[in-house]
């Protein structure tokens, strides 16, 4: 089947090859089995699960016919101390279509960790909807440790209400086709953050599409992407901050840094800012390219090999994402990165 | 003696935090020809007072009146107040990229006097004053305050005071963060400016700048009110004992 996914809502000229991503792959079949494991202190939250034989769609544009839905509600004022972990290790050629709906009621807080791994080919399509009520706080960490020939599709959509704070962190470290879609609606005085770390290798295709709206006054959107490409990997990044009319005194920032580690990889980026309101501060910065020769030389004069020096600098960039993550996740990520870079 | 500035029972709150009352019934009179000093601990409302006189959008007046030269300026617009003859030297002067100092000075002079300054005599005047203040004349071609050091920015404020010749000059912490030489230059600037018809209000928390100036009155501002006034000896007392006697 041929697919055109992650399309820009307002296209630019086709010559730029960034309006969407064209992919061709056989339609995956989900057998309504295979289950996410849920761990953590579940005593104060409400979880419902069901298999549904209906369409699962998302703003990514990918559509399937059946899926499992997991609805999690964090009741008003409840604070869950430790992250709830949803994880799955795929068996060979396993397909998983899941929708997770996170509902944070007023003044609640809870962190989630979604972790996916496999040894070879697998197919994940995860759709997440997060709704943060007034004053709620949530961190959602998504880790992709899938095998080399896997497909990883993750589409999240969120609404962050007044005074609430949401942070999504994506760690993208596996698979041959990796698609991400994020749509954020940031309401009055709320904060919506997105942190992405990726490392593309082999022939992998990475496509990131994020659209965050500052909808009301004093809202903050912040997108930070740190990544590197090696071998013949290709990456597209579309990040949009949209200041809607009426969102005065809002802030939107977007930073994307990509280091190219080979001569056959390709990086495309479109950091868009759309602005309908005068009283806002919008900034974006994009930098790409190679590592400064001076820095390399300095590190090498301290005894590091060129490769080690590269890794040090790379990890320096990645630490901007990793610094806020739990220690056990960080060590797992570093192990995986070192394995990929070896 | 003619009252140049008169403030009656002034109450203000912060624009972004209406629950925060800063000035609480402040009274102050500055007669023509005098040099007054307001001292007070951090957070007492010194800068708020200066900015409120100038109708800064950051502060709202909830009660009281301000008169300048007999006119009610309590709710007057900032530029009108400037045109009436009030000047303020800012604690942190703005940087304005792309605008050269010379261009700025000409524009300011023009709008203050309502007529285009004579290019030749104005240039001479700028040159003379910059020399007095130890500023390099080449600075007129630099972008306004962009890349200026803290001291240079403050000197630039004094330069504007000298060129615009206001009736009342309010110097908001002009001496803070400056070394002894720079403070001396600022004092020199005030001397140059001062005559029997104009007045100066110096807001400071140190007495260094007062050493070489003839001060008529010193006021102590604590918690939004003037709690004591006296002659220049009051400054020396505070220098020695601090504000503890005035803090309840």
């Amino acid at each position, binding site marked *: 089947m041929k697919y055109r996914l992650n399309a820009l809502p*307002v*296209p*630019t*000229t*086709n*010559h*730029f090859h*960034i309006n969407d991503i064209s992919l061709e792959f056989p339609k995956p079949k989900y057998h309504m089995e295979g289950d996410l494991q849920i761990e953590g202190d579940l005593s104060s939250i409400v979880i419902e699960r069901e298999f549904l034989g209906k369409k699962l769609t998302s703003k990514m544009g990918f559509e399937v016919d059946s899926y499992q839905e997991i609805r999690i509600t964090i009741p008003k004022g409840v604070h869950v101390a430790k992250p709830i972990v949803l994880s799955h290790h795929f068996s060979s050629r396993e397909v998983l279509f899941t929708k997770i709906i996170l509902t944070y009621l007023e003044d609640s807080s809870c962190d989630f960790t979604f972790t996916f791994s496999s040894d070879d080919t697998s197919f994940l399509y995860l759709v997440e909807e997060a709704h943060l009520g007034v004053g709620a706080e949530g961190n959602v960490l998504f880790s992709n440790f899938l095998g080399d020939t896997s497909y990883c599709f993750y589409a999240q959509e969120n609404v962050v209400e007044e005074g609430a704070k949401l942070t999504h962190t994506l760690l993208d470290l596996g698979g041959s086709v990796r698609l991400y879609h994020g749509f954020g609606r940031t309401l009055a005085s709320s904060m919506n953050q997105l942190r992405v770390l990726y490392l593309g290798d082999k022939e992998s295709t990475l496509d990131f599409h994020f659209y965050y709206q500052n909808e009301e006054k004093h809202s903050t959107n912040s997108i930070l992407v740190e990544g590197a490409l090696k071998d013949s990997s290709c990456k597209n990044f579309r990040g949009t901050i949209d*200041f809607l009319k009426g969102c*005065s005194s809002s802030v939107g920032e977007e930073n994307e840094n990509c280091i*190219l580690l*080979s*001569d056959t*990889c*390709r*990086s*495309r*980026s*479109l*950091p*868009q*800012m759309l*602005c*309908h*309101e*005068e*009283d*806002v*501060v*919008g*900034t*974006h*910065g*994009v*930098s*790409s*390219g*190679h590592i400064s020769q001076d820095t390399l030389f300095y590190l090498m004069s301290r005894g590091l090999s060129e490769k080690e020096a590269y890794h040090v600098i790379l990890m320096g960039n990645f630490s901007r994402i990793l610094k806020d993550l739990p220690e056990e996740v960080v060590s797992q990520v570093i192990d995986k990165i070192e394995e990929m870079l070896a | 003696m003619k009252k140049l500035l008169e403030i009656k029972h002034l109450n203000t709150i912060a624009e972004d935090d209406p629950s925060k009352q800063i000035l609480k019934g402040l009274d102050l009179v500055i007669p023509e020809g005098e040099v007054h000093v307001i001292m007070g601990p951090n957070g007492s409302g010194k800068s708020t007072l200066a900015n409120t006189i*100038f109708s*800064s*959008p950051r502060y709202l007046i909830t009660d009281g009146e301000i008169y300048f030269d007999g006119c009610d300026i309590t709710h007057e*617009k*900032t*530029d009108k107040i*400037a*045109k009436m003859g009030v*000047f303020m030297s*800012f604690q942190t002067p*703005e940087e*304005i*990229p*792309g*605008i050269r100092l010379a261009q*700025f000075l000409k*524009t*300011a002079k023009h*709008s*203050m006097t309502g007529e285009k300054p004579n290019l030749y005599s104005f240039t001479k005047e700028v040159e003379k004053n910059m020399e007095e203040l130890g500023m390099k004349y080449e600075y007129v071609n630099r972008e306004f305050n962009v890349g200026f050091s803290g001291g240079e920015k403050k000197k630039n404020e004094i330069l*504007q005071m000298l060129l*615009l010749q206001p009736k009342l000059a309010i110097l908001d912490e002009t001496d803070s963060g400056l070394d002894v030489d720079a403070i001396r230059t600022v004092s020199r600037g005030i001397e140059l400016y001062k005559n029997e018809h104009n007045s100066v209000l110096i807001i400071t928390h140190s007495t260094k700048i007062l050493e070489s100036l003839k001060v008529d009155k010193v006021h102590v501002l604590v918690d939004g009110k003037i709690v004591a006034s006296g002659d220049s000896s009051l400054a020396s007392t505070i220098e020695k004992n601090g504000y503890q006697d005035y803090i309840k």
Partner: protein
Amino acid sequence: MAKKDVFSSSQENIYDTKTNHPTLQKEYGFTEEIVKKISKDKEEPDWVLEIRLKALKKFYELEDPSWGPDLSFFDLSQIATYVKPVSGEVRKWEDVPEEIRNVFDKLGIPDAEKEALAGSGAQFDSQIVYHNLTEEFQKKGVIYTSFDEGIRKYPDLVKKYFTKAVPIFDHKYIALHYAFFSGGSFVYIPKGARLDRPLQSYFRLNAPGAGQFEHTLIIVDEGAELQFIEGCSAPGYNELNLHAGCVELFVLKNAYLRFSTIENWSKNMLNLNTKKCFVEEGGKIEWIMGSFGSKISMLYPLSVLNGVGAKCEFTNISFAGAGQNLDTGLKIIHNAPLTSSLVHSKSISKDGGICTFRSHALVRKNAKNSQLSLSCESLMLDSESRSDTIPVNTLETENVTFSHEAKIGKISDQTIYYLMTRGLSEEEAKGLIVRGFAEPIAKAFPVEYAVEMNRLIDLELEGSIG
């Protein structure tokens, strides 16, 4: 180009000068017949007519762009494709018909030529009416003529480069251009020749409801240097006017070209312009653009850095007021090692005006050790306006230093307050800040043009600000 004293002495908007010309011959329609008539009028060789006919065919096959400003409201059949003034092309201002000369006099063009230019040309509607180059440079072998004359007099040179930068089929409006092109300038700077003063072509579209399709072709040969200035303006009418010009630039080995444009089309103009430049080894192109006019603009000059060490500098300011949609930007292709590009773009939008910055920077695999630095800043003067930044960056090689920064914001209240304490009204304060914002771009223009730019900013600011 207008000089300072022109501005200070006159209160009227000099750009809005209209003329009555009952003797005008206007041609409507997009038919083979008209294409053939234009070609015949110009006594063109067959190969040019062939290009025109091929382009016309392509025009009917191509669609409006699927992105950017909506052009669907635009009825092409209302546009006169060819407006022939009664006069021919002359070398002395005295010989230009009085009515037309008056327009250029008001714009200050003849004065500017006397004082600061190496040569100048003037186009009125579809036709070049004046072209002159100082003798000094004629002797050096510099060619500066109308494009029509270029085809007649230098067919080999024109044939070698014409349509080679901008292909006929690039997009719908370039096909339209190639079918109906008329006027424009042809410039050739021989090897090693350096012009110490700029050349200037001024394009004036005075006829209501007309299209202007001028073609400018500039070749700067090895080691040569040229500054070229292009000015455009038109009086305001209710009918839509269309400008679909084309600029092809060739900067050969170690050559240098600065191409400056001050565009002040009237607010009834659709400005769908195409510009491209090829830069060879060690060459450098500098683009300087000020976009103030037009109802809709779509303009993205492309620079192709084809030789080792080729350079591009791009400086742009757009100012969109009520009813204006300025969709501008650039494209850069790094196609050789050690190439570099430096981009500064600024935009100001007010009273519901829309500014869009759209760009594509492409670094090809063979562009090792290249450098790119892009920055764009947008200033919004009110919440009715829009400002969008849509930059695409594609890197195909590792060994490149790339940075891109963008900022959107408004004028700080604190800065306005500060200026007001110095006696400026709020409006004056805003005006001063806007001029400061534009200053780095104005600086890139020769002094007379910087004055004109400030004048245009003042004109734009009138009404809402000061």
